[in-house]
């Protein structure tokens, strides 16, 4: 029996303080298949693979490689067993060349003067060139890492495994940082690797990817193995329900919008980043009272910079930002807060909270300088305490020691609750939410959506920036789509289908020229054909089967939007969601 499988993990249990990350999990992987591990954030996928890669040791259970029982002690050991892993965060030396990065640790050596060993960089370059041609992974060995884009960096990581003669390749959420075109390309590469006899383990929470390339799929939920399915014979809806552990509901209660006067008026906004690269190009839009305007787009297309520019964190090159009739283009961050902007930033640990402050100090981060917290430059501790007690209660912020807890020791979800609570309490006319649900579990996501919609109903203007298309389709009244720093389209949510939004997000709707467009629009068409859906404001739509899966894709945000599964937009969906941290375990 045993020889049939190249990897067997039997009855694996792994505990961390406070949680059981894996509970009696058994998986068996055949040589030459693409085996997907599906589960939500925190389901235990990454922990399981970390044990296979020698980063942790299981508390219970055993691992067999090619039928032989092994105790994998380190990543080095795993490498010797021909196991390779592409981590979510690339491990590359930024000022080294592609070839140097790949060969590091196993450099070809030549002798100078017959005895002094030096790194043979010429041989490294030619080896890497040959290797990249063999597997169809185009890289230039002499390029420096910091000058190449993310998807090329990922190819370097794959080549690193192949250079070490890995037979079992683990990919940890490989599409999280890629654009839709790059995802297509990567999936092709992975298929190609299977054809060359490699065994591939794919960690993901995106059903669509699994459907496209995986042979079998193991579903994990809260550390337990739920089922192992044959992908070809299973609908994404079934997978989705198994992954979430309950029937996925798609509805967020929402009254029709009732717009009031214009609160935020952005006109001809141009923003350049530190590298003097134009990231926002001539963007104009308005947000009204009682409106949720969502900006959809693939990560890195300028949407976060728009939010930063409005909040004052990034300088505006030209254009105008008007808040409630007042020009705030040149105002300081503090002035903008006082004039009525709440801002939930994308990067909560570096911006949203001071990690080493206590909870009560953090909950007053935006108004510590005002009464009752501060009088004549002196702080009143009781006011901090009182404010914090109230918000903890109201927003269900859980922490070890209440107000006095150092925020660093709190979970990401509770940190986010604290930020959302604090910003909502400012009662600002304009609220900017950037990726408000990133890395949170389903319950917390629903909760934040409810609060956001409640604020809308209270007449606030809300600017929502999200990489989760589902979130946008679910919450927005108006959708603006950004591509390459330019707004491609602004329309009421009801008038756009997910597919259309997806196409705008990739810039295909606009220009039909470049060659890259070809593959993409094809994907788009395919999608349209299959899905037939489009989700209206009303909410769900038929689409039934595949649709459900999709929405879960973006970690169960679900929403009324169903849409077709392969839709271009969908790919974008979960993407970026877990870039940097926050994510699993």
């Amino acid at each position, binding site marked *: 029996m045993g020889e049939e499988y190249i990897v067997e993990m039997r009855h694996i249990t792994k505990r961390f303080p406070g949680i059981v990350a894996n509970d009696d999990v058994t998986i068996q992987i055949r040589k030459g298949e693409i085996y997907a591990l599906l589960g939500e954030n925190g389901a235990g996928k990454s922990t399981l693979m970390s044990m296979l890669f020698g980063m942790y040791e299981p508390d219970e259970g055993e691992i067999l490689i090619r039928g032989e029982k092994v105790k994998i002690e380190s990543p080095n050991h795993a490498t010797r067993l021909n196991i390779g892993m592409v981590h979510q965060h690339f491990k590359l030396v930024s000022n080294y060349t592609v070839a140097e990065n790949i060969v590091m640790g196993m450099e070809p050596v030549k002798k100078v003067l017959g005895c002094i060993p030096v790194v043979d960089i010429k041989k490294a370059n030619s080896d890497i060139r040959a290797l990249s041609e063999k597997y169809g992974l185009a890289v230039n060995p002499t390029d420096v890492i910091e000058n190449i884009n993310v998807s090329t960096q990922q190819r370097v990581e794959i080549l690193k495994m192949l250079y070490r003669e890995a037979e079992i390749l683990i990919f940890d959420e490989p599409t999280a940082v890629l654009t839709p075109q790059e995802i297509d390309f990567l999936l092709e590469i992975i298929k190609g690797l299977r054809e060359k006899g490699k065994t591939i383990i794919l960690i993901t929470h995106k059903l669509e990817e699994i459907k496209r390339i995986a042979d079998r799929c193991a579903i994990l939920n809260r550390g337990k193995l739920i089922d192992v399915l044959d992908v070809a014979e299973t609908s994404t809806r079934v997978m989705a329900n198994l992954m979430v552990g309950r029937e996925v509901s798609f509805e967020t209660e929402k009254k029709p919008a009732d717009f009031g006067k214009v609160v935020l008026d952005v006109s001809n906004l141009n923003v350049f980043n530190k590298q003097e690269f134009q990231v926002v190009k001539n963007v104009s839009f308005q947000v009204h009272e009682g409106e949720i305007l969502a900006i959809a787009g693939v990560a890195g297309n300028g949407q976060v910079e728009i939010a930063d520019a409005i909040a004052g964190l990034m300088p505006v090159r030209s254009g105008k930002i008007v808040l409630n009739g007042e020009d705030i283009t040149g105002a300081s961050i503090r002035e903008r807060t006082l004039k009525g902007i709440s801002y939930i930033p994308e990067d909560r640990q*570096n*911006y949203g909270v*001071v990690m080493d402050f206590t909870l009560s100090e953090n909950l007053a*981060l935006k108004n*510590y300088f005002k009464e009752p917290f*501060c009088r004549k*430059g002196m702080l009143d501790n009781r006011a901090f305490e009182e404010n914090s007690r109230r918000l903890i209660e109201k927003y269900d912020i859980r922490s070890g020691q209440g107000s006095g807890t150092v925020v660093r020791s709190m979970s990401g979800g509770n940190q986010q609750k604290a930020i959302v609570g604090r910003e909502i309490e400012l009662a600002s006319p304009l609220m900017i939410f950037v990726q408000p649900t990133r890395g949170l579990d389903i319950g917390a996501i629903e909760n934040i959506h409810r609060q956001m919609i409640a604020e809308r109903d209270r007449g606030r203007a809300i600017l929502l920036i999200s990489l989760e298309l589902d979130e946008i389709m679910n919450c927005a009244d108006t959708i603006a789509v950004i591509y390459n720093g330019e707004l491609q389209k602004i329309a009421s949510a009801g008038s756009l289908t997910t597919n259309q939004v997806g196409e705008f997000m990739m810039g295909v709707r606009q220009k039909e020229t470049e060659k890259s467009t070809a593959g993409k629009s094809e994907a788009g068409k395919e999608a349209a054909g299959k899905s037939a859906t489009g989700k209206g404001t009303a909410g769900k739509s038929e689409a039934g089967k595949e649709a459900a899966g999709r929405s879960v894709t973006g970690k169960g945000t679900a929403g009324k939007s169903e849409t077709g599964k392969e839709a271009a937009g969908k790919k974008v969906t979960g993407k970026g969601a877990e870039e940097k941290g926050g994510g699993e375990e």
Partner: protein
Amino acid sequence: MKNKNKIWNAVKIPLLAILCSLVAAGVIIALTGSNPFRAYYALLQGSGLAPKAAYANYKSMLTDLFSYVNYFTPMIFAALAVAVALRAGLFNIGVSGQMLAAGFTATVLVGYSGLGAVAAKPLVILIGMVVGGLAGALVGFLKYRFNINEVVSTIMLNYIFQYVISFLINTYFVDPVSRQSVEVSAASRLTLMDTQAGNLKIDIPLGILVALAAVVLVWILFDKTKLGYELKAVGFSRSAARYAGIRVGRCMVLSMTISGMLAGLAGVTYYLGYMGSIQPKVLLNTGFDAIAVSLLGSNNPFGIIFSTMLISLISKGSTYMRSTAGVDTEIASVITGIILLFSACSAYIRHRLERRRSEKAQTAKEDR
């Protein structure tokens, strides 16, 4: 009860560091053939904290005690200077240079002026604060405006101050006999030297009052004021502070200015209090030791009083230790060094202890 626990938690690791160091140094002393207990007792005697066997005319334990206080006053300021910068996330390695700049300016402007005591003493303090503050502000400005690492700029400035002032002293203000700068007038001196009190002659350091006030003010600054909240926020996370609307650049310049002002006070209490003159070409170790003193005091203003007293006790008492216990004075800096060594590790030890405690709590929970 809870408060007591908190204080104990803050204090126990520095105490452990001190204990380990005393044991380690005791072993060294014993190995060189002296009695460590006698040596340590001699340190106390030399600092006026324990009676000596005999006293010369006009001297008593009180004389020694006052001279000890006079000796450690500058260190309190210096350690506070380090702590203020550190709370805002900056390393002020330039305390020695700022001390020198402030001390020299006050010496030239007031020490040689012939002003009366009532005008001169406050003026010395004021000049110390202004010059030190400016020197600190320059570092903060370089950091904010040009992104120059403050560790680098303070080291560079240390040498620039040292050599320029050495040049000025040697060229214009040198005392040909002592080869130091000409001694400052008694009126400008912040320590009342050899003051007759009863049948004793003691040095009364006025600076200690200012130092204690500074301790309280720094404590209020960080625990009770808006500015302190902002400085701490900047120290912990510049990006989050900016997001909160705090002007980060201003905070960095301000914290370096305050730090420099405290360093300036250290300078005037040293050069116009304890010493009375400046030795050219010499940069004091005070500024560097202060980093360690502040560390040992957990960057807490009250903790700093105790760590200053301890470190100063060792160096101050070392002369007497040599004469009675026959131990080289240089051992004092070795003991200090070992204490610093242990306290540099304290963050790690604390971290380990905490982790072990939380793991224990965890297993206890699971067992139940």
